[in-house]
Structure formats: C-alpha cells, structure tokens
C-alpha cells in the first residue's frame, strides 16, 4: 500500500543528488509567491519549471500521474465556485451561457488563477517528496545547525507512523472478520470508527514511557555538543542554486515594492 511508505522514488538524477537544502529553498520561494503574488502568468511559469525539474529528476511520469489526481478536483471546484458565483469579481460580463447557468468571464479567470496557484504549491512539495530521501532531509537540516531533537522528532515520526498505520490496517481486518461494518450508512461507519481507533490510541500512548527510558539511557538529555554520524556536503552547485533562489526572491520583492 502506497500509503505506508514515503513517496520518495529512488533514482539516480541531478535533482536527487542536490542537497535537500536546495529543494527547501525552492519550496520557500514558491510559498512566498503563493502567499503574496496575484499573477496567473507567474504561477503558470512556476508550474512549468517544476514540471521540467521533475523530468530532469527522472520522475516526470510519476509526477504527472500523481499531480493530475490531486489538482483535478481543485481545478474543477475552483472553476465551479468562481465561474458560477464569481465571489471575488465585480464585472458582470458573461463568458458563455448554458440554459440558465452563466459562466462569468472574470469568474472563469479567477477559477483558473486559483487552480494554477494551488497547483504550484502542491507541485513544489510533490517534487521535494519524490526526489528527496527523508534521511538526507534531516541530516541536511542538522548540518546547518537545526536542533538534534527536532531531527529526532522527524525521523521517529517517519518510523513510527508506518508501524501504526500497519497496526491500523491489522485492526481493520480483524474487526471486519468479527463482523464490524466498515461499509454501509454513515452512522454505521461512524460507529465503526471509535472501536477501530481506540485500541491504536491506547496501545501507543502506553508505550511512551518505555520509549522515554530508551531515549534517556542513550543520553538524549545530555548537554554535550551534539555530533552527527552523517553530514550532508554542500557543493558549490548547491550553494549557487540556493543563492539563485535568494536572488529570485529579492528580485520579486523589489518588483512588488516598486510596481
């Protein structure tokens, strides 16, 4: 089940070999644009660039397959909400009419705008996920001084969550075998939710104490300067690419302020 693994795809590509910090810089850049930009052209360009990067990372096909699945409903609902009701618009101009339904020109534009905008945000995270081995992500953050304990939180989460999801699946199967209805009316399904989740929650919370001991005896609270088994090298290319993200960010901010 795909849900049980991280969606990283192991490939030997330029994008894979980049220091994860480079990809963090891309994510940050797109997040800033997402928060402050109102330009549809800009978001379309961002979408295209990320798509090209996905192909450069040899994950182009998986990228498209996954992305279409995610942004399909977004474009659909976006065009529906904005095309039909144009809540952000002022113009009454109609793009086309279908019986009593009017799709407004401005609403249609907003529909596409939010579609591309959201798609850009999803794309950049998706590219990161597909091409970054999670272990390297934590190591790279540690290398630039992120707290060791934060690294523990991320790695432990990545290990514990699949275990718990597997447990969830086992419990679902076991309860189904005992006749618990996981299909049918909504009240039935809601009724199934509690007996399924309860044991997982209780069982896992009871184990926290033992894990606390395990952490303590490994010097988790030690005040010594932490060291790392692995370090992520930052190559010249990595540095240049991070610098590029920063420059693009500055250019964007300058244009926003002037324009």
């Amino acid at each position: 089940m795909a849900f049980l693994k991280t969606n990283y795809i192991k490939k030997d590509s330029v994008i894979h070999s980049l220091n994860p910090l480079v990809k963090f810089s891309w994510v940050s850049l797109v997040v800033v644009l997402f928060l402050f930009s109102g330009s549809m052209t800009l978001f379309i360009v961002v979408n295209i660039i990320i798509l090209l990067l996905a192909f450069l990372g040899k994950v182009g096909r998986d990228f498209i397959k996954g992305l279409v699945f995610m942004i399909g409903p977004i474009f659909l609902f976006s065009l529906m909400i904005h095309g039909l009701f144009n809540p952000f618009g002022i113009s009454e101009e109609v793009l086309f009419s279908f019986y009593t339904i009017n799709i407004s020109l401005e609403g249609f534009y907003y529909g596409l705008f939010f579609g591309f905008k959201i798609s850009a945000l999803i794309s950049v995270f998706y590219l990161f996920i597909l091409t970054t081995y999670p272990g390297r992500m934590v190591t790279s953050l540690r290398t630039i001084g992120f707290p060791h304990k934060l690294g523990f939180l991320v790695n432990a989460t990545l290990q514990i969550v699949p275990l718990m999801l597997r447990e969830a699946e086992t419990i679902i199967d076991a309860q189904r075998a005992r006749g618990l209805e996981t299909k049918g009316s909504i009240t039935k399904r809601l009724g199934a939710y509690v007996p399924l989740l309860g044991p997982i929650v209780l069982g896992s919370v009871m184990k926290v104490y033992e894990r606390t001991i395990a952490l303590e005896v490994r010097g988790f609270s030690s005040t010594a300067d932490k060291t790392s088994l692995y370090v992520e090298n930052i190559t010249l290319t990595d540095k240049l690419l991070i610098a590029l993200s920063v420059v693009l960010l500055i250019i964007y901010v300058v244009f926003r302020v002037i324009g």
Partner: protein
Amino acid sequence: MAKKTKKGFLEELKKEFSTYGLALIPIAIGINWAGGFLVQTLKLPIWGDTIGTIIAAVLAGPWVGFAAGGLTNLVKNFTFDPIGAAYGIVNAVIGLIAGYMYKTGRFTEKSNWVEVLGTGLILAFAATVISAPITVYFFGGVTGAGADLITAMILGTEESTGLLTAVFGSELVTDLLDKVLSVFIVFAVMKKLPSRMLRNK
C-alpha cells in the same frame, strides 16, 4: 514583574518539552495520521487528524500539543502528501487550546459530558475561524474536497453574503462533527489511562 512571568513561561516550556513530551510527539503524529487514514478508509466526512494532537496537549501540555499539531502537517507535506500545507497552523492551535483547557480544568478526565461537548464546540469554532480565512484568501475558497460542494451550495442561495461566510459555513459543518467526536474519543482514552499519566497540571 513582567520579566518574572517570562522566565516562568520559558521554564514551563522546558518542563513540557521533557524527554517524555518529546517522545510523545511522534506517537501523537502517528495517531493523527492513523486517524486520518481510518477516516479515508471508512469514507467519513470528517478529518480525524487532531486526536493525537489533543492527547499530546493533555498528557504533556499545550505547547507540546501545538508542536505535535504543526509537525503533523509539516512532516507529511515533506514526505508523503503535498496537500494541506497551509493548515498545519490549525492543527497546532487545536493543541494549544486543548492543552490550556486541560490545564485550567475545563476539559479533564473528570469532566461531565456537557463540558466535553463544550470543548468540542470551542475547538470546532477555533478551527473554522482560522481555516476559513486561509481557505478564502490564499486558496480562493477551494479545498479540492467534498466540502467545496457545500461552499458552492451556500454561495448559490439567495441569502449568500459572500465567499468567506460560505466557506465558514461549509467548514464549520465538518469541524463540528470532527472535533466533537475527537474530544469524546480523547475523553474515553483519558478515562482508561492510569492516573499517573494524567498528572500534568
């Protein structure tokens, strides 16, 4: 005097983020994801992804709840699922509020059902108040989920007063069911936990 409270707060934080608090966070995130996974499997119209957050807040404190909630989305967005990046703050605030309600004795293992229900309602309103503006101003009201249909339905009514209220309405429906159910589950769990685990006050 102000200085004193500040120091007190930092000490409080340090106490919350003890080894126990930190060991609890990945477990809480796991519960959140398992909850979300079950909701998907059962095709329920709720999120199911804040139960771990509320438990972390209860067992270790509001700021641990905050961290567990925020990291739930953050870690997910960088490893599994790129959707929902902006809503980590909602999950985090849920933890914060639940933690303070526990600390001040408004939502504990000894609460009656009215108090539990009240907690669920407060969390639902808080979640909607934070998430609706995010959805409207950054996502144009679009979430890509079934809730969008409710948004559109509300927009289509004569009384519609704009996108924000429409989104607020549609998200409140989901959140009410979700948060009320979640706090009742956490309440049931609290009742079953040995009392030594519920000493954080």
